[in-house]
Every structure is written in C-alpha cells, then in structure tokens.
C-alpha cells in the first residue's frame, strides 16, 4: 500500500511540475507572442519589438530551456521516489 501511495505522490509531483512548465509555455507563446503582442511591441529589445521577438525568437528559446528543465527535475523526482530505471 505504501508503494501505491508513493507512486501517487510521484504522479502528483509530476503533474505539478508539468503545470508549471506548461504555464510558462503558454505565457511566452500565446500570451507574449499573440495576445499581448501589440502592447509588448511598444518595448524594444535591440532592434526587435519585444512582442515580435517573442513570436519569432524568444518563445522558441524558452521551449528548449523548458524541456531540459523538465527532464532535469523529473530525473530528480524519479530518484526521490525510487521509480528510476537502473
């Protein structure tokens, strides 16, 4: 039963981490790159308008970082809950 409980906790921790990552995923692409693009375009980043930068560059960089962050945190969770592969 305790293993069952531990696995449920592992799954919950995973879902929490997932929600955080997908939240950031949504913010950089849909919020910054699409919904708020006009407002952010008032700010400039070098020769870029910020909203445009998020839509064509920034969101992609954040996506890459997000996957590596998730993979790193999940490896830690796997060990913490002793569900890792050998």
């Amino acid at each position, binding site marked *: 039963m305790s293993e069952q409980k531990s*696995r449920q906790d592992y799954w919950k921790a995973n879902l929490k981490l997932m929600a955080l990552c997908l939240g950031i995923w949504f913010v950089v692409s849909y919020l910054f790159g699409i919904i708020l693009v006009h407002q952010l*375009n008032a700010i400039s980043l070098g020769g870029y308008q910020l909203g445009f930068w998020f839509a064509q560059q920034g969101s992609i960089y954040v996506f890459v970082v997000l996957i590596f962050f998730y*993979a790193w945190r999940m490896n830690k969770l796997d060990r913490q809950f002793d569900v890792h592969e050998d």
Partner: protein
Amino acid sequence: MELQTLTYIVVGATFALYIGIAFWSRASTTGEFYVAGTGIHPIANGMATAADWMSAASFISMAGLIAFLGYDASVYLMGWTGGYVLLALLLAPYLRKFGKFTVPEFIGDRFYSKGARLVAVVCLIVASITYVIGQMKGVGVAFGRFLEVPFEIGVLVGMGIVFIYAVMGGMKGITYTQIAQYCVLIFAYTVPAIFIALNLTGNPIPQLGLGSSMADGSGVALLDKLDMVVTDLGFAAYTAQKGTTLNIFLLTLSLMIGTAGLPHVIVRFFTVPKVADARISAGWALVFIAILYTTAPAVGAMARLNLMNTIQTGDVGAADGNLVYAERPDWFKNWETTGLLKFEDKNGDGRIQYYNDKSEAFAAKAASFGWKGNEMVKVDRDIMVLANPEIAKLPNWVIALVAAGGLAAALSTAAGLLLAISSAISHDVIKGMIAPNISEKRELLASRLAMAGAIVVAGYLGMNPPGFAAQVVALAFGLAASSIFPALMMGIFNKKMNREGAIVGMLTGLTSTLVYIFWFKGWFFFPGTEMAANTPDNWFMGISPEAFGAVGALLNFVAATFVSKVTAAPPEHIQHLVEDIRVPKGAEAAVEH
C-alpha cells in the same frame, strides 16, 4: 568549376554517403526495423528527429513564407516548435515506457479495441500519405532546378535512394541516414544565412543580425527599415499583425498539438533506451530544430529587404527610382528562366515597379507616378531560400550545397513517413489484425514489402499529385491534432477513459475537422464542391480550416469524457497498465514480441 558539375559532385557525394550508411546499418529483427532496437543515443535521436521533422517545406518554403507574411508567419515558428514541449511532457516518456512499436498499437492496447486501433491506422495513413507526397514533389523540384533533370526522373532517383536505405535498414538505417542528412541540411541552411546577415548588418549571427542596425551607417534597425520599405510601397508593415488574434491563436495551437500527434515524430522516441532518454531526447531534437527555426526569420526578413532594394533602387515615385529591366542582375535572369520570377512591363517604361496594387490607399499615389499595376507578376516564395546564395554573391559550392540540403530535408522526412506507413501496415494491420501468429521473420519480410509498396505509391502520387496533396497543414496536422493527440493524451492522463469514449472521441474530432475543411475546400478536395468560399467572412468565428484542428481536439475531449462517464469503466488490468506507464521503473530494454 562549372556550377552544374559542382552540384552533381556535392549531391552525388551525399547520396553515396546515405547508401554507405544503408549497407552498414541493415536491420535483422523486427525490433531493429521498427524502432532501431531501442539503442539510439538520445542526442543522436534528437538529431535524427530534427531531420525527420524538417521537411522540404521547412527548408525551402518557410523562410519565403515568413518573408511575405512577416509577423503572421510566427504561427509556423511557434506552432512547429512548441509541439515538442507537449511531446516531451505529455507523450514521449509514457509511450516509450509502454515499449511497443507503433502509435496505433498503443491506442489499440490501451483502449482494448481493434476498432480504436483501426481508426488510428486510418488517421496515420491519411496524414502520412498527404505529407509524403509533398516530399516526393520536393525531391523532383530540387532535381529539376539544380540539376536540370526532368521532374519524373528526379522523383525516381529519390525513390531509389530511399528504397535502398529504408527497405534494408528500416528504422535503424533511416536513423543513421537522418543524422547525416541533418548535418548536410543545417550546414546548407546556415552558411548563406550567415553571409547575408553579415552583408546587411555586419553581425554574422543571423538571430542577432535580425535585431541589429543596418550596416549602411544609417543606424536604423533592420526590422524598422524593412517596415518602412514595404509600407512605402503600399504593403502591410512587416512586423504588424494582419490576421485576427483568435485565428492566429487557434492555428498556432492546432500546429502544436498536431506536431505532438504526428505518428512519424512520436515513433522516433520509441528508439531510445530509457524513459529518461525520451524526455531529454525531445529537448535535443528541439535544439537542432531551433537552429533552423530561429535562423529562418532572419533569412526571410533579410531576403525580403534585399529583394525590395534590388528593385526599388531610389526614392519611391522618383523617375529613376526603379530598376531598369535591362540592367537586372544575373540571379534575376536565372530565376526568370525557371518561371519563379515573372516581370510584365505594364506601363512600358522599361523599369520594374514592384508594389501592392491591391492597396486602395496607395492606388492614387501609384497613379500619380504613372504606375499601371504591380509589374512583378510572379514572385514565388521559394525563391527566398533558393536564390539567397546568388543574391548574396556566394561562391558556387554554397549553391551546390543548398541543392544537397533541400534534397536531404525532403528525403529524411519522406523516409520517416514511409516507415510510419509501412509499420502501420505490417505491424498493426497484418500482425495485429489479419495474421497474429505470423513469425518474426515473415513479419520482417512483410514490413520490407510494405515499405517498398509505400515508396512506389508515394512516388506515383508525387508525380501525379491528387487534390489533397497541397493540404498538408489542414489535413495532416488537422487529423493528428483532432484525433491522435487527444486519444494518446487521455490514454495516459485519464485512467477511467474507456474504449467507447476513445472511439467516439476520435470519430468526433476526425469528422468535425474533416467536414469543416471540406466545407471550404471542397468534398475530398474536388474543386467546385465547396459549400462556401474559403474566405474569412464565411469562416465560423473567423477560424480558417487550417486552424480548426484545435477545435476538433476540444470536441474530441468533450465527447470522449461524456461517453466514458455513461459507459462501463475500463477493465482492471487496463487501469494497471496506465499506472504502470506513469512510472519509468521497469521499462524493458527492448520488447521482442
């Protein structure tokens, strides 16, 4: 050396490399044929995934799309990369843990239903065939333009090359070839981009160059300059949004979940040794994809600026402000002969006027200049990548490299798609439904025959493209987004999702998306059968057929959840299966069955 000779040498060398790899990596078991024996290193798999993913369209057409759509092309940039976040977080690790060979196999096992598996097979085949036709066409076009070989011969040569390494090596051969193809295509894409960025901004890194000032000493940012140049000629500002926010939002979402639901991409994550590898491998895949996808916006914007400046040499409206046709540069002449550029001297002044004659606001101005319509009657967007090295005056070997890169992009994607099709036929249909007791040796033979058959069909359709061939974004991504992605996700995240719910959900997503596409594009894409013109005024809430996949997915989720609540829960052992795929521990090295 003569350009054509050089192109033959470079393309020939890459083909020899692919064939060499084919001999070295033959598959001897079904496990090797379907999933490369699950022995691929995550970084290698990431590179192969990137080549698998980046098609002829990514390599040749995307920068041109960006050049002419400006900000609105962001949907493709975000849509075709953001899907990897979904893949890494929501699908890849769990499907790897499940440890089987194909995507329909997971759907069939998880929903304990051959019917569900069959629906998945049909979606997979329709999506993949649509996609692969474009690759075959891309091979023919690349051969035609660079090597002056007839289109059909080009397609046949492409078929032959894929045949050798895909039939012999299956996933194993395809994987190692894709790694080589990635190196060729990324080198071919970035070298011209670096030179063009250096020319215009003095910054060799295209991603930074796009955000830099012009190197002409004016101190104006490149993007501001581009906005000025295009609006002066009546075009919409490059960085401005043209489509509606809702449609841009939904199109991006459809492309993202479609990407995550495309079987030929998912199956790449079945090839790594461990669950943890599947997660990190998606990250590597996106690194390799991002190198091209963050370069493309720079290529698009810079090529557009170069094109505008080549034609509009002086002030707009000045008598000598436009390029004299007789003095056009060589690359202009070269691409005119291919029909990708076309000029018509409408006002008979011997100069080229390139402006937006659809703009009513600009019409009066144009009339006062004595302009009688846009004289660049054809500017094919593919030219932005294809002519780039010539516009930037790069040496011939770079041009030869672009030809090899385009072919690498088309062949690597075609091979991945053909594998998805052939394993669906040999593993899901033949072994899964018709002859469950087939021996491994005979299944391997069946998979090779299915691969050969798929190559012939794809080649034939590439030469005689049916109406649906041009609908990759609508059809392939629409189907993957509305049927496959939701079924996979619910299979993993909703333990109580049952057979009835999954089937009704998939059919709901599939039907609603197809009907919406057919409504505006004709039933089965037959011209003249559309129910309403494909224009924004007719679209439901301004949603384009390409963007409807996300809505179809939502309908799928709603229908499946409702049906599963009113029908019997899935059997105990299925719920255990779901619990089991949620933890990495106990993944088998390779499932031989």
